[in-house]
C-alpha cells in the first residue's frame, strides 16, 4: 500500500459534497468550452444572418494549425498564429465564396457552408491523416493549477476558462461600446443606408466573418487539447454548437454564454445522477415490475441518458420558446 494522499480522506468523509463541487467545476469548464465554440458562430449569425455550418470545421482547423505551428515555433506563437490563419481563411471564404452565394438567399448560403464543412474535413484528412494527431498539452501549461478534494485541475483548462471569458468581454464591448460595432450592427439591418454614408459594407462583412473565424480558431487551439484532434472533430462538436445557439437565442451573445453554462452544468450533473424513472416511481409508491410495459425504458439511469439532455432541451425550447432564452427573433 503506497503512502496515502491527504485528499484521500475526504473521499470517505464527504463523497457527495466532493462530487457536487467537482461536477460544478467540470460543468463550468465544459460550458465555457462550449461558449468558445459558439461565440464566433453567434457573432457571424447575429451580424450577417449567415448560419455557418462550417464553423465547427474552422474550429477543427484551428486545432490542427495550432498543432502544426506549435511543432514549428512553439505554443505561445501558435496561440496567435493559428487564429490569425483561421481569420485569413475565413476572410477568403467570405470574399470569394459567401459573397457570391449571398445573392441567392439563405438556403444557398447554408448549402454552401454545409459543403464547405465536407471540403475542410477531406482536406484535413489528406494533410494530417485519419488518425488523431498527437496534439498533447504543451509543457508550459501542463501542470495541476490547484486541487479540489484530491482531484487536480489542469492549468490548460484554467487558460481555456480565461480565454473564454475574455472572448465574451471583448465581443460584448466591441459590439456595444465601439464605433465599428455600431456600423456592423447598422450594416445588417440597413446596408444601403450605411453604404450611402460612405462605409464599406462588404468590407465590414469580411471583417465580421474573419473575426468569427478567428474566434473559432482560437477555441480550436485550446479545445484541441481537451478533445481529440482528428478529422471527425468538427462532426463531433457540430450539433451541440447549434443546440446552444438555438437555446440561447439566435444571435444573442449573452444568451449563448448562458446556454453554454446551462448545458455544460446540466450534462455534467446528469452523469453524476444514478437514478432512473424506476426509482422515482418507487419513491412515489407506484408499483412497477419487470413485466410492466416499458420497464426497460424506466430503468435507464439518468447518467446513461446524459448526452441526450442538450437535445431534449433543444426540442423543448423550440416548442415552448422558439426565440430561445435571450433571443429577440424566432428561429
Amino acid at each position, binding site marked *: *500500500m503506497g503512502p496515502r*494522499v491527504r485528499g484521500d480522506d475526504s*473521499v*470517505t468523509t464527504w*463523497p457527495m459534497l*466532493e*462530487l457536487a463541487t*467537482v*461536477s460544478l467545476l*467540470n*460543468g463550468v*469548464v*465544459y460550458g465555457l*468550452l462550449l461558449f468558445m465554440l459558439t461565440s464566433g458562430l453567434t457573432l457571424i449569425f447575429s451580424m450577417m444572418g449567415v448560419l455557418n455550418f462550417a464553423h465547427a470545421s474552422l474550429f477543427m482547423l484551428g486545432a490542427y494549425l495550432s498543432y502544426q505551428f506549435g511543432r514549428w515555433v512553439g505554443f505561445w506563437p501558435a496561440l496567435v498564429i493559428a487564429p490569425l490563419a483561421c481569420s485569413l481563411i475565413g476572410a477568403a471564404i467570405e470574399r470569394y465564396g459567401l459573397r457570391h452565394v449571398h445573392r441567392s438567399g439563405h438556403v444557398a448560403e447554408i448549402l454552401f457552408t454545409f459543403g464547405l464543412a465536407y471540403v475542410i474535413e477531406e482536406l484535413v484528412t489528406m494533410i494530417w*491523416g*485519419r*488518425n*488523431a494527431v*498527437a496534439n*498533447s498539452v504543451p509543457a508550459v501549461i501542463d501542470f*495541476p493549477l490547484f*486541487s479540489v*478534494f*484530491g*482531484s*487536480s*485541475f*489542469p492549468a490548460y*483548462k484554467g487558460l481555456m476558462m480565461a480565454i473564454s471569458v475574455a472572448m465574451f468581454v471583448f465581443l460584448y464591448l466591441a459590439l456595444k461600446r465601439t464605433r465599428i460595432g455600431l456600423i456592423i450592427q447598422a450594416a445588417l439591418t440597413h446596408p444601403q443606408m450605411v453604404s450611402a454614408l460612405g462605409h464599406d459594407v462588404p468590407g465590414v462583412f469580411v471583417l465580421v466573418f474573419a473575426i468569427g473565424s478567428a474566434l473559432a480558431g482560437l477555441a480550436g487551439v485550446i479545445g484541441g487539447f*481537451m*478533445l*481529440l484532434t*482528428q478529422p*471527425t472533430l468538427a*462532426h*463531433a*462538436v457540430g450539433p*451541440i454548437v447549434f443546440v446552444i445557439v438555438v437555446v440561447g437565442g439566435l444571435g444573442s451573445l449573452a444568451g449563448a454564454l448562458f446556454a453554454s453554462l446551462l448545458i455544460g452544468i446540466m*450534462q*455534467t*450533473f446528469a*452523469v*453524476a445522477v444514478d437514478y432512473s424513472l424506476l426509482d422515482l416511481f418507487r419513491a412515489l409508491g407506484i408499483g412497477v415490475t419487470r413485466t410492466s410495459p416499458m420497464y426497460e425504458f424506466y430503468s435507464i*439511469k439518468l*447518467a*446513461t441518458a*446524459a*448526452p*441526450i439532455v442538450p437535445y431534449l432541451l433543444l426540442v423543448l425550447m423550440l416548442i415552448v420558446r422558439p426565440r430561445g432564452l435571450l433571443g429577440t427573433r424566432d428561429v
Partner: protein
Amino acid sequence: MRSRHRSAVGLAVAWVFCAGSSAADVKIAFIDPLSGGAASTGILAQKTHQFYIDAINAAGGLNGEKIELLSFDNKVNPQESLIQLKKALDEGARYVVQGNGSSIAHAITEAVLKHNERNPGKEVVFLNYAAVDPALTNEKCNFWHFRFDADADMKMAAMTDVIAKDKRIQKVYLINQDYSFGKAVAAAAGKMLAEKRPDIKIVGDELHPLQKVQDFSPYVAKIKASGADTVITGNWSNDMVLLIKAGKDAGLKVKWETFYGGSPGTVTAVGEAGVDTLKQISEWHKNAAPELDSTVAAFGKRFPGKENEYTYWRAKTMWEMFAAAAKKAQSNDPVKVAKALEGMKMQTSLGEVEMRADNHQMLQPLYVSTLAKSPKYDVEATGLGWKSDAKVEGKMTALPTTCKMERPR
C-alpha cells in the same frame, strides 16, 4: 449526344461484367468502417488483411487461385452492413471478413445463415477477426461463423485471474460502452470477480453512450468519488483515449484494466502517467516474443507512419489457418474449407492455436501486459511500450459453451 452517352454507359457496364466473369479468383469481402469516426481502425485492418493475402498470393495462392479482397464501407451501421453484404454476394464473394462492432457481427452472422439456407451450393463463410460478444459463439453461434479473436468472457477470465492475485485491489469501478459488447464486459467482470475475489467491492457500474462522449471529466469525477483503486473498461477507439485523457487531467490515481489500452492514440494520450498503471489484455504485443516477428517488421516497412502501428496479430493467424484449411480441404469451396477449419490446430511463434470444433472460437495465447518505460520495442514512437505480466496458453482460455450448431451434411 444523348445516345452516344448511353452507349458509353452500356460499354462500361459490359466491361464491368466481363471483368467480373472472366476472373476465377477467390473473392473475399471485407465489410468494415472505411469512413467516419471508426475509419482509422477499419483502414488499418484492411491494410493488415491485404498484407497477409498478398503473402498467400505470392506463395502461389489458395490451391493455385489468387485471392481478391473486395472492400465495402459499412459506416459501423448494421443496416448498411447488410446492404454491403448483399452487394458483396452479388459480386461473387464467398467469404466475408468483419470485425468492428459486435452489433454488426450479429447482423452479418444472421444474414449469412439465412443466405446459406436459401442458396445451397452458394454458401458463404464469415471470418470474424474482432467482434467479441460471447453470444456469437454461444447462443447465437452457427456453422458458418468463425471467430479468430478471444471473446469478452475469455479476455475477462484472464484479466480477473491476474486481478485475483493482486491483494492491493479492493474497489473496482466498471465503465463501459452502452451496447451489447460493453454490457457483456460489465456482466463478465461482475460475475468473475464475485467468484474469484468475493472481497472486492464493485463501487460503480457505468454505461455511457458509444462514441458520443466528448468530455469524460464528469465520469472521472464519479470514479474518484467512489474511491475506486482499479477501473475495468472494454472501451475502444475515442472512448478509450478520451477516458484515459480525462483521468490523467484530473490526476486520477487508479489502475486501468483495459481490453483496448493498445488502441491507436491511447498510449500517446496518457504518456508517462500510464506507466505501471495502464494494462491491457491482448493476443499479442510488440514485446510478447523476444524478437519482433518478421511479418510485423515487413508490415512496418510497407506501411510506415504512426497511423499504421501494427495491431492485428490475429489477422496473421487467421490467414495462415485459412490457407492451411484450404490446402487440407484441397478445395476453395467454403463448405469444405469450413469443415477443414473445424478443430484445426497450428503452431505459431507464440504458441499453439486451435479453432474449436464445437463453437468455432479460436483458442490462442493471451497476454496481460503493462505499459512500461524504455522497452525493447516501443509504440507510437513514445519511448513507452508493453511488458508482459502474464501469459495464458491457448488451451487455458477455453470456456464452456452453450453452442449447438447444425452442420451441413
